[in-house]
């Protein structure tokens, strides 16, 4: 059991119940992810999915970039690849989805909130599959993307953490998620890093 940041007085998820984490970030996201992803332990037993909005047409160097900064394995999945533990980045120009047989799905459907990949697409499909075992984290961004997805996670019984808009480089996206999803925790990046380390740590059994 985690102890929540005191000021929020909320119940945090029971660690063994967490089956997966999904994270969405937009403007200012590289810095924010750099503050939180390295805290995922090397031997984490769960997958951590990440969507970050990048300018269109830019080929992704995210895997290289974060592989050097993270302890956990960092990858970009292929279509129908079985989901395993570690950090998985959505590829540019495709929506990333979670299928009910625990494989990755892809689509080139229209952008959502001007974005492909869209945070909403990942969060909503993951909420469908992991239900109350899912933790969703919405970080900095100047977009509405992620709010509906965070809502879907809450509706499915999952847990939502949002970066405190006051502390985010771009406040629009976390503020939208706070408004739409009534997250269990709204806090700073360092606190989110600690929470992520705890939910992603190896299970003692």
């Amino acid at each position, binding site marked *: 059991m985690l102890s929540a940041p005191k000021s929020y007085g909320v119940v945090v998820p029971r660690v063994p119940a967490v089956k997966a984490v999904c994270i969405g970030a937009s403007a200012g996201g590289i810095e924010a992810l750099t503050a939180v992803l390295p805290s995922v332990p090397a031997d984490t037993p769960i997958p951590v999915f990440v969507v970050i909005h990048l300018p269109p047409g830019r080929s992704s160097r995210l895997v290289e970039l974060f592989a050097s900064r993270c302890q956990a394995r960092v990858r970009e*999945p*292929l*279509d*129908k*690849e*079985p989901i395993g533990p570690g950090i998985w980045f959505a*590829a540019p120009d*495709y*929506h990333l*989805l*979670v*299928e*009910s*047989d*625990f*494989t990755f*799905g*892809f*689509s*080139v*459907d*229209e952008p959502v909130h001007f974005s492909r990949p869209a945070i909403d*697409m990942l969060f*909503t*499909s993951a909420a*469908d*599959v992991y*239900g109350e075992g899912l933790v969703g984290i919405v970080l900095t961004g100047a977009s509405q993307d992620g709010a509906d997805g965070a809502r879907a996670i809450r509706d499915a019984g999952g847990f939502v953490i949002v970066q405190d808009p006051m502390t985010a480089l771009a406040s629009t996206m976390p503020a939208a998620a706070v408004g739409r999803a009534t997250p269990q925790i709204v806090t700073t990046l360092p606190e989110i890093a600690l929470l992520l380390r705890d939910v992603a740590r190896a299970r003692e059994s």
Partner: protein
Amino acid sequence: MNPAASALDIEIRLLLEAIYLRFHHDFRSYSMASLKRRIAVALPRFGCETVSALQAKLLHEPDTFNALLQYLTVQVSDMFRDPSYFRAFREKIVPDLRTYPSLKLWVAGCSTGEEVYSFAIILDEEGLLDRTLIYATDINPEALQKAEAGVYAVERLSAFEENHRLAGGKRPLAAYCTTAYGGAALSRSLRAKVVFSDHSLATDNVFAEVQVVSCRNVLIYFARALQDRAVGLFKEALPRRGFLGLGSKETLQFSPHMHAFEEHVRDDRWYRRC
């Protein structure tokens, strides 16, 4: 996974069954996550609150189906989308194709035709179009009509031109189209080399032997069993040494047919039949 299927999951399965029984389009083996999303987007457009209501509407007002099909199959593409894929075709595959007296290509899931004309233009630039026939197939009649017309919004041309250049284009794209009334029409000489046809990777069989199959960002919408069927068709349509091109996130790595192919240009997802 939830132990019991949710009401929504059941409704979707029933809808797909109804579509299959009534309209003979088989979406039952499509990837559920994106299909679910597409159906959710379609519901309000049909004035339906539930998937069950949409099912009733379809069965009692069959004319609705064509409109729904646009939501279920809509695919966005550009000419020379992923230019490096087309550059690899030009540089690593065309030299081999020169050795054939006549050529057949199959663009499976051609949607509104952008990629079909991309291949036609490259083959023309390389002097092979005269001896080429391109089969362009899709399950969506409306998309096929647009593909056959070969007219695209003028606003899209500059992106097409940039992609064409990055794909190693030899002439200005303007050499292949005429613009009028806000549309750019691909030239008749290209269109004359293409046969557009209704064909389903889910229910139809192989119709010809071809040297090249290009099927991009279609398999991602299929669940594994249907992917296996589709790749099986490609395997059957291709002779030894024939080429198969897939989308940048698609792979034969998890396919039972993987041993029938070798990687030809790994990064651009070109495979070769062995």
